[in-house]
């Protein structure tokens, strides 16, 4: 009978979210979401009667994460009802010796529970309903490292009747861009040559394999469990994997995240573009979405007003809206004729600037300048 493992990684509990400190409500929601999503995952794992909950690195955002965050995290992990929670230090929460404050505190908090820190590269063996399961943890000793930590696994004898699960944290060649090779990069052939049934990895924030793919993947990457920034384009994932001695029997993607980050880069030229932006925003789950608008382009006054109205309405609906508004004002000929009498210096100046394609913003700037002069 296969063992069932819920596999997560890159939870980054303790992200400070400095950019959002100006809004307590949003900041607290984002900070809490890191642990809330983990809580949802533990509940899901218990519901699925998982045997193991594996955290393949970067459970914490950094090694100096506050003790209260460690305590809260351990409290959540303690609720797992399976055989054990196995926590591997990643490159953000690396293990650099027994004196490491983070992990010393973690061990103390987890004492007497099934939550176990895998800080040494040595085999951890379990038996679940008669099935032997051997984990091969490869913890990170620092934030960066040029060589992978999995080299020792290949040399360990592996009984045929056991399930062998490698646990490691780092980049996988071909899976993400790490041109400098600073994140313990593992080659896929190196993973395959280690002789384990499969690898449960962490570090790359995008899931692998694709959710619908079948077979017995050589490794799994769960991706971040709930989005942490606009760089995360998926809703947050984890894996539920059934593994037998002869390979991966089944796997299913879980989505414990709730908060979304959405960045919309849009160039606005017309009122129709503004309406398109409104429709695009309307498709997002506003209450749970941190919206980052990067708007540029050029709008006439009437469309600009429409856009500002839209952004105001979005601020009321979304969890948070950040807007880098670099939309230029468009002064068109109609407006020019309306505002400035033909033949005036102002009219002549602006008429030429409107036609100047190399300086599309110059006409509006000149108009603002003229208005300011007029006010004086």
């Amino acid at each position, binding site marked *: 009978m296969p063992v069932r493992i819920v596999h997560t990684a890159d939870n980054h509990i303790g992200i400070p979210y400095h950019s959002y400190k100006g809004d307590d409500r949003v900041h607290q929601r984002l900070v809490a979401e890191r642990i809330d999503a983990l809580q949802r995952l533990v509940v899901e794992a218990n519901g699925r009667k998982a045997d193991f909950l594996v955290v393949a690195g970067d459970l914490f*955002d950094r090694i100096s994460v506050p003790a209260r965050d460690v305590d809260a995290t351990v409290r959540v992990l303690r609720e797992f009802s399976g055989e054990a929670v196995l926590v591997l230090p990643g490159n953000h929460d690396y293990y650099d010796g027994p004196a490491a404050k983070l992990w010393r505190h973690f061990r103390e908090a987890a004492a007497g529970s099934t939550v176990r820190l895998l800080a040494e590269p040595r085999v951890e063996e379990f038996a679940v309903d008669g099935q032997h399961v051997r984990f091969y943890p490869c913890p990170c000793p620092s934030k960066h*490292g040029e060589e992978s930590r999995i080299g020792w696994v290949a040399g360990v004898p592996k009984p045929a009747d056991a399930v062998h699960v490698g646990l490691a944290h780092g980049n996988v060649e071909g899976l993400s861009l790490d041109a400098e090779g600073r994140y313990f990069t593992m080659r896929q052939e190196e993973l395959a040559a280690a002789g384990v049934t499969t690898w449960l990895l962490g570090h790359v924030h995008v899931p692998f394999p694709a959710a619908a793919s079948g077979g017995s993947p050589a490794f799994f990457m769960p991706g971040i469990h709930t989005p942490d920034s606009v760089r995360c384009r998926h809703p947050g994932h984890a894996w539920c994997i059934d593994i037998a001695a002869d390979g991966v029997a089944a796997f299913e993607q879980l989505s414990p995240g709730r908060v979304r980050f959405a960045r919309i880069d849009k160039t606005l030229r017309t009122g129709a573009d503004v309406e398109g932006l409104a429709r695009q925003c309307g498709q997002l789950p506003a209450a749970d979405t941190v919206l980052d608008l990067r708007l540029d382009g050029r709008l006439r006054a009437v469309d600009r007003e429409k856009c500002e109205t839209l952004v105001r309405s979005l601020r009321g609906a979304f969890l948070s809206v950040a807007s880098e508004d670099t939309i230029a004002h468009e002064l068109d000929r109609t407006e020019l004729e309306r505002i*400035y009498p033909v033949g005036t210096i102002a009219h002549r100046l602006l008429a030429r600037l409107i036609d100047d394609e190399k300086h599309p913003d110059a006409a509006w700037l000149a108009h603002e300048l003229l208005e300011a002069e*007029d006010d004086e």
Partner: protein
Amino acid sequence: MILKSIRLHPFGNTADRTYPMSGPVVVVLGPNEFGKSTLRQAIHHALFTTTQQTPKQAEKSVGRWFPRPDGDHAVVTVVFEAGGVEWTLVKRWGAGHRSELMGAGTVIGGEAAVQQRIGEMLGHNEATARLVLSTGQAELASTLFAIKNAKADELRPVGDVMTAAAGVAGDIGPEKLRARLTSVIKAHFSRWNRQRQAPELDNGMERGIRKPWVNDVGTILAAWYHWQRRMEELEAVRRAERALDAVTAELATLQTQMAEDSDFIRSGRLLRDGLNDRLLVVATLAPWRAESAAMAEASRGWPSALTAIGTADVRIEEIKASIAALEAEEDAARRRDAARQTQDHVDLIVAARRAALAAEDAVRCTARPADADVAELGRVSERIKDTGNRLDARKLAYTVVSTEPMSAVVEEGNEAERVVPIGPAGGSGNARSRLRLQAGPVTLTVTSGEEDVDVLLDTLRRDEQRAADLLRACDAATLADAQVKVKQHDALVQSAARAKDLLETRLQGKTFEAWQEAVAAIAMLPQTRGTDAIAAELKAAREKLVNETSARALHDGHVREWIATYKDQESLLDALVAKRSAIRRSEERLAELPAVPEGFQTPQAFFAELGRRETANAGRPERAIELATQQQQLRDDVGDRRTVEIEEEAGLAKRAFERACQEGRDYERILEVLEEIIDEGEADPTAVFAAKVASYFRAITGGDDDLAFDAQTPHAVRRGAAAIPAGFLSQGGTTALALVMRLALAEAHLGGCPGFIVLDDPFVDLDADRRSRAVGLVRQFAERHQVVFLTCHESHAQDVGRPGPPRA
């Protein structure tokens, strides 16, 4: 003025109807006889036709709008907005006439006051409204004619209108604008060096974020500083992270090494004494083993060395005897080689001797003419030659003819007489100096010249006789022959002398007989092998002797050394047994001592490693504390700042900087254009107006036509090189031109003030494409002024009134 509503109550056939007029485009759709023209007239009369009229005047001006058949008055109420205030104008013509204007809480009564206020709010006169701002369908086509023929006080020239507008509203002094722009540009670029794309230098010193400018920092530099500070922060965090990695790795390595070395040192110290003893025993054993081996070798070699010496002595004597025999043979062989050379020389002497004798014989057998004879013969021969030449100079050529054949005796010169037959054919000849011919009884003697020929002939005869005598004495035929004989004899004499010299040389001072005796002695020498074979054998024998002697010396040396060391063979054997016993005892001791740890060849190597590790470990705790302190410091430096967040902030700051740069450049461009405009001077308002009409016309026709103007009125359409007079345009072209003229004039007259225009079915003569474009133009106009659009065409109404772009 913007219309809000108009009520006709009554006016014409309309008893009481209100037309709402809100919005920039007011579309009134209705079939013919609906009252559209009535509405247009109502608006016009309400704004311009006085109510203060006599019944006759009223009947003439507005009487046609009194309800038929018996109406005596007409009333229009217009609600409009002007200057941000909503006004209500009520005008009643005919019976009970009155004018009333209400707004802003006041009521203006009285015809003159009302009309004056309305005029102020409109900003134009009745003719302008009639000719420009309001048109029926029928009047539209004659717009150009009407404008051209308007009275001077009816419609102000458009140039004046535009100049006035330019002079009063919305303009700005160019100097003031230039100053403002200069200030704004300075505020942007202050302290920013565009060539370097960096802050200005301060006396050659950089003023980056480490030492930033404080005063007069422009917008661009401020944005740049902000961006650079984010970048520096990003780099600092990355640097700290890298340093933290390095320190963490070093600390981990250090701790691992400390642990490993401590174990090594602890166990190593326990081994140290045993290994020292081992070192001593090993140190003793090595020379003992060498000595034992040397003794064993001597013991084995001593007897055989002695035997070898004896054998070598015998061999050396044999080789020496062999060498002596070979040397004797070699001497004999050399002497035979020398005798062989003597024989060859004697052969040469014999040949030379033979040649010398032959030469002497040749001299003896050859006669040599006497030198005196040869000399006289030479002189006589010269004289003969000379005399002969002189005789030849007197040569006579003769011819003898006889009628009858006969013989004659002829003597030519000193030649002997000869008988010559002559006849009729005659005979001829030559004679030297004298000819004597005797024929029969006649003897003819002819002598040439005056000299005595006889003397010459005698001299010649004597000399020839003497020459013959001398040749005989020389035994020669000619003088040359005699001379050759002299030379040949002299050559033989010289040859005999050389042969004799050669013989003397080869004899080398000895007699020929002495040489013959030496040759006879050679035959007596013994026979031998060749010298080369003897020499090779001799060389091999000598080398053998050297080798044998060396081998003997070596054995002899060993024996002498052993005697010196061990005295004799028996003593040597005793010493060997004693040494082997000692070695065995030391090896037993060595087996009891601790072995050298794995990985080390010798105790010394182990002690060296132990010492190295003890030294290395002594300083490590201090270094570990140092690294741990650094690690904590770096962790504090990094804090909870995330590079991802800082990258985002840096990206924002960079974009803000780029915008500031672009804005600065835009302001510079504005100033540049302003300078161009200032240089160009004031614009010609009529030309500006003409350009606008032309652009509107092209907007409707969709072509690239241009317009030719007569003052402010277009009189022809220029299409390429052709010019089509306005009167020759199609109905659609005429309508389009009239419409754009009205729109352009309306914009000029209304200027920046809100106003309205009334258009009654202006598109009926336009095809679908032009209508669509005309709708666009009208809607564009409606963005600035109100358009009251009256039509009986539903599609026109929809096009003008509906939102979005006009239908194609």
